[in-house]
């Protein structure tokens, strides 16, 4: 195998063919971490010894009886709000700086059972909200396409690490866009599954009814591989779905001929007009899907500000409930941006929360009705390419709605897929969403776009990064 960073699917094929070992692959990732993470800050904790032990065990098992699946021997990382047994899990907060869980989160356990090698715990915004922050015990992650620019968040380390090839895949969490935002700005694929599809047990809450766990990888196929290992009912998560798990790769190459793609044009052209580069990516996707035989349908949702407002009040009130104890006991241990969010929670009345919940139900019914006309809906992932990390406004999450919250509010599966580059050379992204539990359809449509374009062929140029200190 060449020095090129493989996808999970490519690495799995090489491991199965005996041309690559898990230990070789793990060492390649550790070398890239050693060379570049001092600048990228993608990791809070690198678990090199654990990774090598996992890899040696995987290689022994594979020699004995072949790989048990496509994740066997694959190096991954976990966002640092996901509990890992005997490994520091900080939530990027001074509140949790000494927290070493006694058990793995369900999602971490499932990936371990699948045979992955754990390279470490990945940078996040504090308790998965509010960054970038420069007043926490650990620095914010930097975008490998240009380290002066923002990764988005809160799964910022996962986005940076996958884009730079420090890991082949990783887990993020998504309460208002925290998987899809970093995927969009770092030029990778990020999948937020249906609410309840992946267990949240053992993951620090951000906002209970909006929290999702999902894969972040270089391709849609890799997201399908990771989701296959993650999906399923877990009685220890009160919101875990009992809906049967399907085969997420079976129809990946079925194409889009005869499918219907609904465009939520008013969101990205009227309600929050996106940059020319983002719009070009969306129009490029429409053109590609039409050329592949899909039918394009224009849809008319409510203003995205409605989705944003309902999501904001629910998210803020639920965060306040989750962390008011810490805020009362040790407010000085929070960074400014997370403290902002908890202060906002005091401005939310009980009536606000109920009105937002009523609106949520209306908007969910609206989106299900729109999706009854099509197979997927299409809009932007992020309004523009990554801004300079120093220029992210403090009040951004109350000033303007984002494109990702609607699918947290409605619980529907959504994925961000790279769709080009902006004038600063940074990635831009489309976002697709589908019916409940239709992740296989969603990934099939995303994969078709990847296959029809060349955006997956370009990686960040790591030689531009400074040498390790």
């Amino acid at each position, binding site marked *: 195998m060449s020095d090129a960073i493989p996808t999970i699917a490519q690495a799995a094929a090489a491991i199965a063919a005996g041309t690559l070992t898990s230990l070789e692959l793990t060492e390649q990732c550790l070398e890239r971490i050693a060379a570049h993470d001092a600048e990228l800050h993608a990791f809070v904790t690198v678990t090199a010894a654990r990774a090598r032990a996992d890899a040696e065990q995987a290689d022994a098992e594979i020699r004995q009886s072949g790989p048990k699946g496509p994740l066997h021997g694959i190096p991954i990382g976990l966002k640092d709000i996901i509990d890992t047994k005997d490994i520091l899990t900080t939530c990027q907060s001074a509140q949790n700086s000494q927290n070493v869980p006694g058990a793995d989160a369900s999602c971490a356990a499932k990936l371990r059972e699948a045979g992955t090698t754990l390279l470490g715990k990945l940078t996040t915004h504090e308790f998965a909200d509010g960054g970038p922050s420069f007043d926490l015990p650990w620095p914010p992650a930097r975008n490998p396409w240009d380290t002066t620019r923002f990764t988005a968040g809160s799964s910022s380390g996962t986005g940076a690490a996958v884009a730079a090839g420090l890991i082949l895949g990783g887990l993020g969490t998504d309460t208002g866009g925290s998987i899809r935002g970093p995927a969009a700005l770092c030029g990778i694929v990020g999948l937020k599954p*249906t*609410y*309840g599809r992946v267990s949240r047990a053992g993951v620090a809450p951000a906002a209970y009814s909006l929290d999702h766990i999902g894969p972040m990888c270089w391709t849609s196929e890799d997201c399908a591989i990771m989701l296959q290992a993650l999906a399923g009912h877990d009685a220890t998560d009160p919101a875990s*779905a*009992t*809906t049967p798990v399907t085969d997420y790769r079976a129809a990946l190459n079925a194409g889009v001929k005869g499918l219907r793609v609904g465009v939520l044009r008013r969101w990205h052209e009227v309600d929050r007009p996106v940059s020319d580069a983002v719009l070009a990516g969306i129009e490029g996707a429409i053109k590609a899907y039409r050329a592949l035989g899909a039918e394009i349908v224009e849809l008319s949702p409510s203003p995205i*500000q*409605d989705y*944003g*407002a*309902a999501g*904001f*009040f629910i998210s803020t009130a639920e965060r*306040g409930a989750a962390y*008011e104890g810490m*805020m*009362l006991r040790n*407010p000085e241990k929070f960074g400014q941006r997370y403290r*902002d969010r*908890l*202060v*906002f*929670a*005091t*401005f*939310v009345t009980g009536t*606000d929360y*109920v*009105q*937002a*919940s*009523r*609106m*949520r*139900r*209306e908007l*969910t019914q609206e989106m*299900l009705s729109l*999706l*009854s006309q099509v*197979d997927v809906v299409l809009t932007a992932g992020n309004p523009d390419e990554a801004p300079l990390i120093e220029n992210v406004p403090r*009040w951004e999450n*109350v*000033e303007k709605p984002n494109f990702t919250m609607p699918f947290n509010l*409605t*619980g*529907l599966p959504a994925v961000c897929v790279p769709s080009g580059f902006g004038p600063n050379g940074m990635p831009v992204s489309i976002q697709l969403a589908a*019916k*409940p*539990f239709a992740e296989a*359809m969603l990934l099939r449509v995303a994969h078709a776009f990847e296959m029809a374009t060349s955006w997956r062929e370009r990686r960040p140029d790591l030689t531009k990064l400074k040498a390790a200190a």
Partner: protein
Amino acid sequence: MTTPSVTEQELGVFLTRAGFSLTPAQIAEYREAYGHIATMAARLRRERSHMAEPAHVFGDVFAAPKDTQR
């Protein structure tokens, strides 16, 4: 649309109710953000029927109607 305004004293009521202790300088910083939040709160208010409620639903809350599945 004019952004709703609030006094620092009014913000202080919210914070006292929550048991949070902030300095006057910190409270002053939140006045600007409060305007955006109040604008969003107004968006939530509209005429709805009594049946438009955040109901508990037994079963699969987010399942689409069967005739919408493809």
